[in-house]
């Protein structure tokens, strides 16, 4: 584990991504505590206040401090995106691995069905799911997980199949190893790396997808300070108070870039044979 981090730090993208994400993680951890004011405190006279000493990032249409909302919102935005991705990844990975393990007609049937589900665009799927379950962060999380699962199932299956075809798996079968050992000890450690990389990059998509759901009024609900919701709420006031959009927009972009960089870095660092 430590050597992975070490190797990660040696790739320029990985180091940069890690720095960004550590910063964001720190904000998630202590953000609400270091927020200068109550993020939900409304202030009639302070509406649309320009960034300045009182409000470093300005104030919004209800006079709430954008910086405080940004800091408080990190705790919902980032973990939610991560949770949605993990949930989607996990369920996708289970389906993909099972499919690869079963093989034959079962594999064919599962994958064809997955292909069919993938024909429904992710955002449409999320829209349908949220409308069915009701709006809110939790359901948006579920919706994104559902939208991600088929794609992850595909990825996992293809790496599982690749791992299954490796000679070390053949060697284990020839040795008479049990199914559990083969799946968990021989295949999984080799499947994890590509899946982790894919997951990391998808977190970036999840952040954007959350924001889009919020834009369509289906994600986090006011008065939450979720970044995507902040952007969505700021959009109508773009001409009047652009800072309302700039701050959370930049935060989303930074997070997404951080995860993208980390993913690219991990791609290099997690290759065990690449020892230079």
């Amino acid at each position, binding site marked *: 584990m430590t050597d992975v981090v070490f190797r990660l730090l040696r790739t320029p993208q990985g180091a940069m991504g890690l720095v960004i994400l550590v910063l964001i993680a720190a904000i998630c951890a202590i953000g609400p505590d270091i927020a200068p004011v109550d993020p939900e405190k409304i202030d009639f006279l302070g509406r649309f206040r320009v960034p300045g000493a009182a409000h470093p990032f300005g104030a919004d249409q209800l006079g709430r401090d954008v910086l405080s909302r940004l800091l408080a919102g990190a705790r919902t935005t980032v973990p939610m995106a991560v949770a949605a991705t993990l949930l989607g990844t996990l369920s996708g990975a289970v389906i993909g691995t099972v499919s690869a393990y079963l093989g034959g007609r079962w594999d064919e049937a599962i994958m064809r069905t997955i292909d069919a589900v993938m024909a429904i665009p992710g955002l449409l799927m999320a829209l349908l799911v949220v409308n069915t379950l009701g709006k809110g962060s939790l359901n948006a999380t579920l919706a994104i997980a559902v939208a991600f699962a088929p794609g992850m199932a595909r990825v996992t299956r293809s790496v599982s199949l690749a791992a299954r075809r490796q000679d070390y798996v053949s060697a284990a079968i020839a040795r008479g190893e049990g199914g559990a050992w083969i799946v968990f000890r021989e295949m999984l450690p080799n499947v994890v790396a590509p899946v982790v990389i894919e997951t990391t990059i998808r977190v970036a998509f999840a952040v954007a997808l959350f924001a889009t759901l919020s834009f369509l*009024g289906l994600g986090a609900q006011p*008065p939450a300070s979720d970044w995507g919701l902040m952007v969505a709420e700021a*959009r109508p*006031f773009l001409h009047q108070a652009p800072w309302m959009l700039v701050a959370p927009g930049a935060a989303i972009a930074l997070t997404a870039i951080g995860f993208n960089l980390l993913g690219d870095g991990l791609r290099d660092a997690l290759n065990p044979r690449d020892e230079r």
Partner: protein
Amino acid sequence: MIHLHPTRRGVLAAGAAATMLPWAARAQTAAPKRGGTLRISVDQAVGVLNPLLTRVNPEYLVAELLYSGLTRLAPDMSAEPDLAQSWAGNAELTEWIFKLRPGVTFHDGSACTAKDVVASFTAILDPKTASPGRNNVGPVAQVTAVDDTTVRFTLKAAFADLPVTLAYTNAKIVPAALVASGLERLSRSAVGTGPFKLVSYEPDRQVVVARNDAFYDPARPYVDRVEVVVYPDATAEASALISGDTDLMSAAAASEFARLSSSDGVTALRVPSGQFLNINMGCDKKPFSDVRLRQALALTVDREAMVGFVAQGYGTPGNDTPINPAYRFYEALPLRPAQIAQAKTLLAQAGFPDGIDLTLVASDTPATRTQLGIAVREMAKPAGFRIDVQTMPHATYLDQVWKKGSFYVGFYNMQATADAIFSLLYTSDAAWNETRWNFPEFDRLVDEARVTTDEAKRRTLYGQAQTLMHDQVPSVIPVFFDLLAAQRSYVQGYKLHPRGAVFRLDWVWLGTGAPKRS
């Protein structure tokens, strides 16, 4: 039998001839120019074409272009002649006679007679049609044709406002033959007597209408063609007007209003209206059955600030009654100030010395419902209210919360009369009895005013009703919205109507500087 023309001045007279309408005469400084294409943007799809079933402003707008009613609503909320040239009620106000304009024809060339009026109202009143007009045209029991140009309305109870309520958005006249065949055709095509004929209809993009040369007023409409375009995004819609892509926008978002006002060639339009947001409380159940709790909540709200938070300053403070200066019978009560200490006391007296936990439901359309919820949540916090704001899709809200819930945000257009808004929302027999307030004294006042023709007496009765509501607070009404819109400066004759659902585009003409649109 007395003749009634209920204008603000209370003039008793037969309906004036259309060409002599006071407002029309006032609005015209130069002679209207004929011709040209007017492009007006709306923010929602025109999903329903059948005028008896329209529900939202863009649909009302299109219905108004294609159809006529018996009366139409002037900007001062009085009734003015449309298909009916004149009208009169009997002394008890239980029976009304409407004289129709002779020689009017539908777009398909057939004559429009009393038979069609009877058929139209029969359809509107039929529950199977499910027309929103059923609850809003007044206590009509029966409609009969006296002769080809005379229609008699028999009422269930005395009602002074009938000519105004008959101007309701859904009370449009359609051919009797179509009513007989089931009205299906009206969802795809239009056969009306309105100033324009339907050219093309695409619900989510654009509706095009062209001048009806057989319109009963040979002078109107002034423009040859109207294109109603659907631009769902407020920012983009405003940009389209600023860039000259459209001539008129039917409604502007508050967030775009400043930008529109400062743009060259654009005239921003603003009119105070009775459109309001409220917080409904279920008065039939605990905890809101306790008037002290309701009063406590009302006392937490800073109404002047709320105009800023919710209406971006484009509005007027509300005083917990649905009547504001835009209505005729407004009673100027002193504005309730925010008094947290007193609210705390009342809350304790109501049995919540440690505060109270509540969930306030807000539908997502329009977004201001949620804004109100959040602002109230913060304002009420110091008094001990711990309010959780829950937003839900409009469909779910209508299905599960509306009229059933005990704490939710409502949103209403201005109605034509005080009676309309009271009996729509607050009387015990209200069509949408949201608060289940059911206060007999209030019912009595409204009923009495309904059958009273004396202006001063009515004013007293409605004043008492408003005072009663202000004290009892069945719902907190903290803010009224001004209606906002914008037009290119060359557009002439358009006046923003406070009702919100009335547009009167047949009066609009294009002055110099208007672009040629083909």
